């Protein structure tokens, strides 16, 4: 036998042994910190509060109530059992027709019935995670690229690139104009790709935006459509947060833009990614959707969906729930109301302390501006501040650098994954930190004190998660730098 180490390494594929799964970023590090010391109001009141997880937990009571009233929606209750066999054996990748109809219906309602969706264009996938990977496989070959406006959801780096070999090229958006996507920036990114001999196959946008929580205005959407048509590239719109828009201006879907009279667009270029993970709060059910206006893409995606179909047990539940129009209408309104209340609670609480956020009206988070608290306007300083927030303030928030934000000092703070009391605790902690920081800034001006802080993370490997070693962010090449401790 006699294997050398290199032989051993070659036994697995490059993608299995490489780092393309991108789990060594602060986005995930914060999770790890939370997992090792999770907040609980009674058993661990000093623990880390999770504000890095964009979940929507505000409206489960409405759904629970519906589930109880509709036992036949579950194939495993007495009322639904007669459907058990047919549901259990149904593995057609077209999906249950009632499921597709219900999802199309829901997508239309979320957009105020200003557009309708054709159930035959709905393709299932393993969550939006699966949908984004699938669309990349359909539209691009290894080495080809998608343009993505920054800041963007960190896991795109994994979802769109890892197994597909596709590249992501940033489109620069600046905080100075609220991260607007400008035509100039698009052209610039495109040109850069041309110069580097990289073939651009499409533009990926998330609207409403993660992490900004903002929506794209009509003008911007139209300019994107013009751009992609001119370049003859695809437009993939991830509208996963569509129903989380809680106040004016209202959400405008790309589907609406396509219907406008003055818009000229090759529909074969437009694709929507959707999911129930955020709007309904069902990430566990893995309901991802690819909706394409391109027949060939629908065909191809449908075949690929074999690798991530939605469990028919879940399809049935969703079909039943989302075709209950009375329930859906009520849910959409109530959910938005609760999101708005929570958003206000957080932003007003932050404002009181002099902390501002990007003005937003959607999403499950705010884009908080802490650049005033940075020792210097660098990403190293941002990481230092982030570590302070995680380990001392005990809040898991997500640093802007992990979203490829071009300017340091921004943090994404989630607000919909906890109850009001926990939110108040979080605000209190932020209040204390801000006060201390203000005082400390004064002191520090007089006397600087360097202190080596060796933050040794001892992760408790509980039953549920195992992680590789905690790494520094790839954006911060300096290994274990001394923290400047504010006294």
């Amino acid at each position, binding site marked *: *036998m006699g294997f050398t180490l290199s*032989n*051993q390494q070659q*036994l*697995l594929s490059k993608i*299995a*042994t490489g780092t393309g799964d991108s789990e060594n970023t602060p986005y995930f590090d914060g999770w790890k910190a939370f997992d090792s010391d999770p907040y609980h109001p009674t058993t661990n009141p000093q623990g880390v509060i999770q504000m890095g997880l964009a979940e929507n*937990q505000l409206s*489960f009571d409405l*759904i*629970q109530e519906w*589930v109880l009233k509709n*036992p036949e929606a*579950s194939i*495993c*209750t007495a009322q639904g*059992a007669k459907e*058990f*066999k047919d549901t259990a*054996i149904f*593995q057609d*990748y077209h999906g249950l027709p009632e499921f597709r109809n219900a999802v199309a219906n829901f997508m239309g309602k979320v957009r105020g019935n200003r557009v309708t969706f054709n159930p035959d264009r709905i393709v299932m996938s*393993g*969550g939006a995670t*699966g949908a984004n*990977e699938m669309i990349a*496989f*359909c*539209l691009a*070959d*290894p080495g*080809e690229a998608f343009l993505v406006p920054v800041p963007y959801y960190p896991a795109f780096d*994994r*979802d769109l690139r890892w197994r597909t070999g596709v590249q992501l090229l940033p489109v620069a958006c600046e905080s100075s104009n609220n991260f607007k996507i400008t035509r100039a920036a698009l052209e610039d990114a495109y040109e850069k790709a041309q110069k580097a001999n990289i073939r651009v*196959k499409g533009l990926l946008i998330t609207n409403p935006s993660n992490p900004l929580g903002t929506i794209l205005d009509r003008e911007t959407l139209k300019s994107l459509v013009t751009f992609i048509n001119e370049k*003859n590239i*695809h437009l993939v719109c991830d509208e996963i947060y569509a129903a989380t828009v809680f106040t004016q201006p209202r959400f405008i879907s790309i589907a609406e833009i396509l219907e406008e009279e003055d818009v000229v667009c090759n529909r*074969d270029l437009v694709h929507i990614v959707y999911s129930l993970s955020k709007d309904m*709060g*069902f*990430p*566990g*059910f893995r309901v991802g959707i690819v909706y394409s206006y391109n027949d*060939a*893409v629908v*065909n*191809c995606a449908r*075949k*690929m969906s*074999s*690798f991530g*179909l939605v*469990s*028919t*047990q*879940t399809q049935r539940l969703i079909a039943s729930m989302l075709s209950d129009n009375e329930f859906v209408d009520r849910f959409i309104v109530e959910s938005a109301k609760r999101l708005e209340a929570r958003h206000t609670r957080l932003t007003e609480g932050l404002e009181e302390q002099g902390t501002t956020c990007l003005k937003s009206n959607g999403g499950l988070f705010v884009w908080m501006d802490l650049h005033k608290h940075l020792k210097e306007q660098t990403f190293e300083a941002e990481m230092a501040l982030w570590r302070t927030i995680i380990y001392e303030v005990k809040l898991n928030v997500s640093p802007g650098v992990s979203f490829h934000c071009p300017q340091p000092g921004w943090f994404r703070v989630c607000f919909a994954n906890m109850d009001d009391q926990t939110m108040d605790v979080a605000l209190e902690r932020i209040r204390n930190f801000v006060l201390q920081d203000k005082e400390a800034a004064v002191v520090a001006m007089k006397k600087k004190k360097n202190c080596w802080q060796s933050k040794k993370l001892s992760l408790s490997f509980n*039953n*549920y*998660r195992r992680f*590789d070693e905690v790494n520094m962010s790839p954006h911060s090449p300096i290994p274990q730098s001394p923290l400047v401790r504010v006294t």
Partner: protein
Amino acid sequence: MCMLSTKATCNSHGQDSSYFLGWQEYEKNPFHEVSNTNGIIQMGLAENQLCFDILKSWLAKNPDAAGFQRNGESIFGELALFQDYHGIPEFKKALAEFMSEIRGNKVSFDPSHLVLTAGATSANETLMFCLAEPGEAFLLPTPYYPGFDRDLKWRTGVEIVPIHCTSSNGFQVTETALTEAYQEAQKRNLRVKGVLVTNPSNPLGTTMTRNELNMLVNFVEDKGIHLVSDEIYSGTAFSTPSFVSVMEILKERKCVDDYGCSELWNRVHVVYSLSKDLGLPGFRVGAIYSNDDRVVSAATKMSSFGLISSQTQYLLAAMLSDKKLTKNYISENHKRLRQRQKKLVSGLQKAGISCLKGNAGLFCWVDMRHLLRSNTFEAEMELWKKIVYEVRLNISPGSSCHCTEPGWFRVCFANMSEDTLDLALQRLKAFVTEYYNIPEVIGHHQTIRLNHSRRRSLTKWVFRLSFDDRSPIPGR
């Protein structure tokens, strides 16, 4: 028209094969016991519909499991939010124990080495992504499940090189065939990363012998490559010889403790699913079991692209944790499959058709070589078309399974009622009698005398393909 990816525009999804075309024809004219008694009977779908009554009765007695409740309390929110790719611990534990129980508890599975995937379809693809680069190859014994052409190759870029098995020894894998396949790969400049077998076999309906397994293990040990054992049919081994898992073979070799073969231990991976044993293909429950931590780690992350719905995990955790249910189910499942297979085999014999002697699976590997006009795949296709369109039975031609000998067909028996099976057998017998003038035969072949006028009509007959993509996804 803007360019799509090469993957989107090629046809290595393999869906143009006859395996799927038969399905399409079935879809256009599906048999129904009441409303369409002349329709095509589906015998190309390896589903297990024999034991739903057992599951339904369990569900009726266990309302919590499906009603998102635990001890009467709603845990809907908890489930709806649960997206940890490590899976619900209770479910993995129950699944690991179930896998062990199927193997007569001769081996045990560590839940922390189990990776949950959306069906075996996803499990197989994920393993390829983990074990091979684009352009590298896996060796597969023929005949094999047609879906592998899509699952293993399409998006991964991995190649399949066949290990040719023949009826001379019941399609068992021989050392010669293995070596030849390996050499063939080398000739084609393909680096072989492993061997993938399905055990029990689809489409053969047989379990691999200890000899075969040991020979395979020796081979991969010698070559320093992987062995993937797709054991999706492990719970359908209904008669002797009993099913032997590759994990048992490794255990016998003491590969756990012995440093000498611990590397081999890390290169053997098992794929499983509940689609066949429990008859739940719609729920998309698959798993990869690997002893290699790196494979488990990489595959777990990849499972993000196809996790099992938490709703389903919860239901099945409850079901599989009920040992009374699993014990009863496993034995009853065997009994009913055995009876059903016997019925098919004897019905075929009455039509002068024999099968490979099978002891597992949801199908028989049927020998219709004597009904071929000539020993060619063209003749096999002609016969197949006749069976689909005139006899109105959708069965799967061996060529779609990459069989090297024409004349073999896979015929499923567990996806229909007994009456429907009777009807199918009647139709087949009538067909054979009419076309081949075979008197009623029990137990052995007769020489065939083709009715001459029928032979002419066979050659004149035209097959119209209408490929309109209405087909459901393929099961096995």
